[in-house]
């Protein structure tokens, strides 16, 4: 009956933004939300969003779990479902998934209307940019540069040369995986490095204009 109504409005959709097959943790969560009170729902939602942002939400989860009104098993179903639902929704750009379609899909899952509004406010609200920023940092990546320091030295005298008088550059890079690399850069290599840095900057500038950054669904 509802799909008939959708065709009449002019929007035809075969599946939800969650795909042809709704992930089981979301279906289970939908059932668990039936007689959950909104205050509890909002507390859990807050903790889950906080977790998606990468924050430590152990204290918040502990406080929620200790609330005797909610059995642990039910809480775990709700948390798992919420997390998956939000992750899936946040993955799709807002240009492709509109708020009304998102809400319609959640109605299909029989999620209570007040909760749909709360979910929508996370996915389409002003916290969206922060959540997307966290998502950009995820995915398979090499360790990143966290800290960069340098020093210009002149060797005056060494065990091999009484008057060395050679300038050199010391560099130290600290990576996100905790590793630190310290090395010397001879002046000739430094010139190469400088040239390549300028080349990279130019490439990045050119990339801004290229179509690969403008893919539209």
């Amino acid at each position, binding site marked *: 009956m509802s799909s008939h109504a959708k065709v009449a409005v002019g929007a035809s959709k075969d599946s939800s933004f969650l795909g042809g097959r709704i992930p089981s943790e979301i279906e289970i969560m939908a059932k668990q939300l039936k007689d959950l009170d909104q205050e509890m729902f909002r507390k859990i939602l807050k903790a889950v969003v906080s977790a998606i942002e990468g924050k430590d939400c152990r204290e918040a989860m502990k406080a929620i779990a200790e609330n005797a009104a909610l059995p642990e098993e039910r809480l775990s179903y709700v948390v798992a479902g919420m997390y998956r639902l939000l992750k899936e929704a946040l993955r799709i750009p807002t240009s492709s998934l509109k708020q009304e379609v998102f809400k319609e899909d959640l109605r299909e899952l029989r999620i209570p209307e007040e909760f749909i509004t709360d979910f929508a406010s996370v996915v389409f609200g002003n916290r969206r940019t922060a959540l997307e920023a966290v998502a950009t940092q995820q995915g398979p990546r090499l360790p990143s540069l966290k800290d960069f*320091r*340098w*020093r210009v*030295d002149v*060797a*005056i005298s*060494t*065990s091999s040369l009484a008057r060395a008088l050679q*300038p050199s550059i010391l560099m130290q890079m600290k990576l996100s995986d905790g590793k630190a690399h310290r090395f010397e850069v001879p002046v000739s290599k430094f010139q190469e490095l400088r040239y390549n840095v300028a080349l990279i900057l130019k490439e990045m500038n050119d990339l801004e204009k290229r179509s690969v950054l403008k893919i539209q669904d």
Partner: protein
Amino acid sequence: MLSIGQLVDMQWKLGMAVSSDTCRSLNSPHVSLLLKIADTSGQISQRSFEMTIAQFQNFYRQFKEMAAVLETV
């Protein structure tokens, strides 16, 4: 047998740190040492470190003491 490396080579450098990312005019003299250590299998590893002049003077004093003790042995 307790394995401890053997010092096989030592090189040094007296240098002047002219400037750095945090200090435009550092002008700090220092001594760098490069030690080459061979383990029991013959594998050579390198250790290098830096000392300020004050640290180096302390270092030198320790070696003088070691040399003095060796004389008595």
